[in-house]
């Protein structure tokens, strides 16, 4: 048996990490999961770096599920401006909401989070998860990964509270890939001194991962041409 992720959620859950680690995939899936647990849920896209393939691409699905999406009105348009929506403050101010924050890639993306950090620290009911993917070329070792993660922490002035293991090769991920990444995840956890909070696994692979704990079922939401 695999043990599915079942932690009681904090009011705000943030996902940050290296470009392409799977932040948006994890954040969108987590928001849909929260909603399914009965929480009034909002997801905020704080990505000021990526021009294409963003949370906004899942707008129809999020809307249909009743998850409120807070994203720059310019995301996915021709306006190449690193803009944040004013309503993003709702996630730190509206305590009735359970909020998911999709932080942009690397330290540059995390810079945008800085302005919300004082509110998060004051309320102190958040999980700041670092999303890690061993199949990304610049984060294949624990040391390289830790370097990227430290840069992010420095940029946004917030320390991670846990690890979201998301080693994947997109739709070509196999169960072996996830099993083979466990040692890497463990090493990152030791280097960073953080607990492994969840391991993201595509739904169809879960049955092949007998005995694994805190498995968080995901579906890839972005489909390339």
């Amino acid at each position, binding site marked *: 048996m695999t043990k599915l992720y079942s932690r009681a959620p904090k009011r705000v859950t943030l996902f940050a990490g290296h470009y*392409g680690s799977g932040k948006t995939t994890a954040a969108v899936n987590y928001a849909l999961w929260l909603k399914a647990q009965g929480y009034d849920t909002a997801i905020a896209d704080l990505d000021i770096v990526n021009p*294409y393939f963003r949370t906004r691409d899942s707008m129809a699905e999020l809307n249909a599920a009743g998850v409120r999406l807070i994203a720059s009105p310019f995301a996915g348009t021709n306006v190449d401006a690193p803009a944040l929506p004013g309503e993003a403050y709702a996630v730190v101010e509206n305590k009735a909401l359970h909020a998911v924050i999709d932080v942009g890639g690397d330290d540059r993306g995390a810079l945008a989070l800085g302005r919300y950090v004082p509110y998060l620290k004051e309320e102190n009911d958040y999980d700041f998860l670092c999303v890690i993917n061993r*199949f990304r070329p*610049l984060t294949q070792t624990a040391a390289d990964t830790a370097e990227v993660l430290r840069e992010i922490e420095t940029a946004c002035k917030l320390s991670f509270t846990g690890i979201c293991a998301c080693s994947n*090769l997109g739709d*070509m991920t196999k169960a072996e890939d996830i099993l083979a990444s466990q040692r890497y995840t463990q090493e990152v956890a030791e280097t960073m001194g953080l607990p492994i909070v969840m391991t993201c696994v595509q739904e169809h692979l879960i049955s092949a991962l007998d005995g694994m704990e805190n498995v968080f079922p995901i579906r890839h939401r972005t489909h*390339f041409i």
Partner: protein
Amino acid sequence: MEKVLMKGNEALAEAAIMAGCRHYYGYPITPQTEVAAYMAKRMPKIGGVFLQAESEIAAINMVIGTSAAGKRTMTSSSSPGISLKSEGISYLAGCDLPALVVNVQRGGPGLGGIQPSQSDYFQATKALGHGDFRRIVLAPASVQEMASLTFLGFDLADEYRMTVMILTDGTIGQMMEPVSLDFGELCEAVKDWATVGHKWERKPNIITSLSLQAEELERQNLERYERYKVVEENEVRYEEYRMEDAEICVVAFGVCARVAKNAVNAAREKGMKVGMIRPITLWPFPKDVLKKAADKCHTFVSVEMSMGQMVEDIELAIRCKRPVLCCARVGGMIPSPDEVLAKLDEAAKMGGTAE
């Protein structure tokens, strides 16, 4: 080697490093910025140079200098930035210097937009700067090809002493796919023409695009075109897909070829005899295989993200023997498989009317 998950732009940058490029000069512009960002992270760790130039024009001139010194070098930009570089690319040709130039295209003309496009086809294949000269133009259709064609591009540039352009678009640049970074042996050309100091042991090498005598300038142009002839003979690359019994031939490159491939499969399921020829080199254009296809196919369909720019090359290749339809979306839009299918239906109706 184990596969890794990369963005097209990153795969391109890593392949350049693996091809021995240690000198990158660039300037940020969406949607190619990841190339510069990746180089900025990687180059300092491997003793290479990443330099964010003060402009696109400065960057291409740094490429000229580095290439003259015999080093593998590259620059990258997106459409408006490539227009700025065109003067320098002409000088590279006049100096017979190898270089890799990457264009991750966006919608135009002018400042246009940041969404993907293929509307720099004319610029890349016909007139990327003044004067009589050619570039080898490679058009990747996957993240894997972003890497493999970049690796190949450096070899071709050295072999023929000319600019190789990777002509891609925002979608291929931004999308993520698993990629294998295994390209085999790295073999760099001997560059006895490089300006690296003669140490009184040989005549000085002089690299310039200026000729004081018209006869001499003509001789250089003729020599260059002899080399281009060899490129046209040896370096044409393309992929044929379900062409065995095809009566309609789709022609598409880059991201459009991925869309078109889906449409070809859907058309085949409907019983239509449709195939695709995907040019991988846009120059030299795969003329011979298209000309041969015109013997059997009654209609050609160009699928592109430009206003029929490739149609002219197809018509030339097949000597206007068959009609060439165009399925185009522009300005940052991508054609859908359904739109391609509709055009294929139109092409099917022309079956009886050809010739």
